[in-house]
């Protein structure tokens, strides 16, 4: 069960604050249990750093169950590391070999400025959600449970898209730093449910507009996002987003024409 501890060399991006120069600093990680998660390995290194009078490496984390989307760093150039469909917290050290060198960097994207070390500001995602990632529903009046039948296909597609945890790996992996997969996942999730229909096209228009206002790049269908996504979201969702967006844009033009604005 308990194989010997791993001895690794970490090359970690250290940056004391926003708009400060950062650099890669090397640290040994010694006697790391293969059963540890990647974040537990970082915890262990940090305990050593604090004890020896140095500042610990700042990194985001919360649930450590792979469902909150807080953690996420580039590990050897791959978002969340080498294992497919796995968040950094669910990546275990048995994936590495004794003597390995590991390069750890923050998400790199203009829209995700570094706050400190490996922590970036993902507020741009929040603003995309605020722009349209919601439904307006009356509260306080419970409906009969079966009054809104949803086909298995729709339920599954909505659920698959809803698996997005908003970690930002898609942006980090994209050569254009595009947020299309994230935005498309949210649009697809709500657009496949009856509750999401009233605002479906407005939602697509508003969220895409907000995405463009943030400093994300455009989608040119590299497909790196779906490779990096820890939840396996498909770029099919981007097709859905583009379709809803075009319908919304056309509707808007018609409405303006009817009002005599066109």
């Amino acid at each position, binding site marked *: 069960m308990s194989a010997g501890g791993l001895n690794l060399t970490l090359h970690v991006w250290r940056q*004391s604050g926003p708009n400060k120069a950062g650099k890669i600093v090397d640290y040994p990680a010694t006697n790391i249990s293969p059963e540890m*998660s990647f974040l537990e390995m970082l915890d262990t290194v940090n305990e050593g750093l604090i*004890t020896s009078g140095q500042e*610990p490496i700042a990194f985001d984390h919360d649930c450590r169950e*792979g469902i909150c989307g807080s953690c996420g760093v580039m590990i050897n150039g791959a978002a969340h590391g080498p294992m497919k469909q796995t968040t950094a917290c669910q990546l275990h050290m048995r994936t590495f070999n004794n003597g390995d060198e590991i390069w750890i960097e923050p998400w790199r994207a203009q829209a995700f400025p570094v*706050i*400190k070390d490996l922590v970036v500001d993902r507020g741009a995602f929040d603003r995309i959600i605020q722009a349209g990632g919601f439904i307006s529903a009356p*509260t306080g009046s*419970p409906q009969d449970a079966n009054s809104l039948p949803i086909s298995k296909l729709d339920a599954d597609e909505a659920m698959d898209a809803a698996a997005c945890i908003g970690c930002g790996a898609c942006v980090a992996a994209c050569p254009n730093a595009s947020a299309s997969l994230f935005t498309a996942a949210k649009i697809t999730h709500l657009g496949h449910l009856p509750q999401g229909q009233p605002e479906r096209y407005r939602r697509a228009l508003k969220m895409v507009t907000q995405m463009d206002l943030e400093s994300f790049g455009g989608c040119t269908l590299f497909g790196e996002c779906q490779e990096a996504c820890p939840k396996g979201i498909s770029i099919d969702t981007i097709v859905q987003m583009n379709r809803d967006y075009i319908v919304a844009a056309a509707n808007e033009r018609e409405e303006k024409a009817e009002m005599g604005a066109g």
Partner: protein
Amino acid sequence: MSESLRNDGRVWVPKKKEDCGKKPGEIAEEDRDYYLERKYPSFGNLSPRDIASRAAKEVCDEGRGVGPGGRGVYLDFADAINRLGESAIRERYGNLFEMYARITNENPYKVPMRIYPAVHYTMGGLWVDYNLMSTIPGLHVIGEANFSDHGANRLGASALMQGLADGYFVLPYTVGNYLASAKLAKVTADHPEFKAAVDKVQAMTDKLLSIKGTRTVDSIHRELGNIMWEKCGMARNEKGLKEALELIPKLRDEFWNNVNVPGSGAELNQSLEKAGRVADFLDFAELMVTDALHREESCGGHFREEHQEEGEAKRDDEKFAYAAAWEYAGEGKAPILNKEPLVFDNVHLSTRSYK
């Protein structure tokens, strides 16, 4: 792992201690103890979490736990897979099985999972009135953060119930009503209370950053967790709780005199954030132990070893049919107990049995 897995899994340990080191497949059917099915035939593997947790602890305390450290029991899906097929099980629990495989490097479709109860949710929370407002006017507390709904056997995912009930059915009326009826005078950052709060936080931050002792925040957090786990966990007794009440203030002294919070308060400082939380945990742990010591009965998740009947929790409704709302009395002062009586008009208190 999520408790929903117990819907289809069967929980067992070896009957004999000598078998604990063997691979599960090498242990014959007749040498397995499906202890939940044996002890609670009518509920079996679906017995509520307080019962199932204590039963797991009990078999491990007897030395029949499995896996490294001996703190584990098997959760076996072999029967369910035979009955329903692997694809049906994958459909139901695929994400959880995947998570398990990542953590353990074992395939739960082939080998039984090893599980053990862990602290995940604490019954109780902030006191609120029927409008879900706390003792601070305007501060509404919803979901798992308040004390109102869940007792001992909050089962998997049922935190959703409280989130939905509070969010859908209560808050839309009570918050709206509060906002419409409260006189909310304009306040500015010049308000003396605001200044007092800023000064207090600044003083605490400065203090934490100035100690520069030899203990990391995490090491104190772990030590506190261990005290709570050992003395105020799935089973508690007077002796252990009294020991905890000695240990926690000592650890708090250690924290406030020997913690090392690196860095400054000028930028993002995760150690400082954590230190603030651990400072709260130290106070809160003491309160939890005080409450557990005060409650001389076993009730749901609170199992006092002195109060049991044939291994099951024994309540004392005469003396303890109330929720204890502890009031903060200020630093270093004993909290004040407010009793919120539990009155049952239609459904009357009875003793549950899962046998």
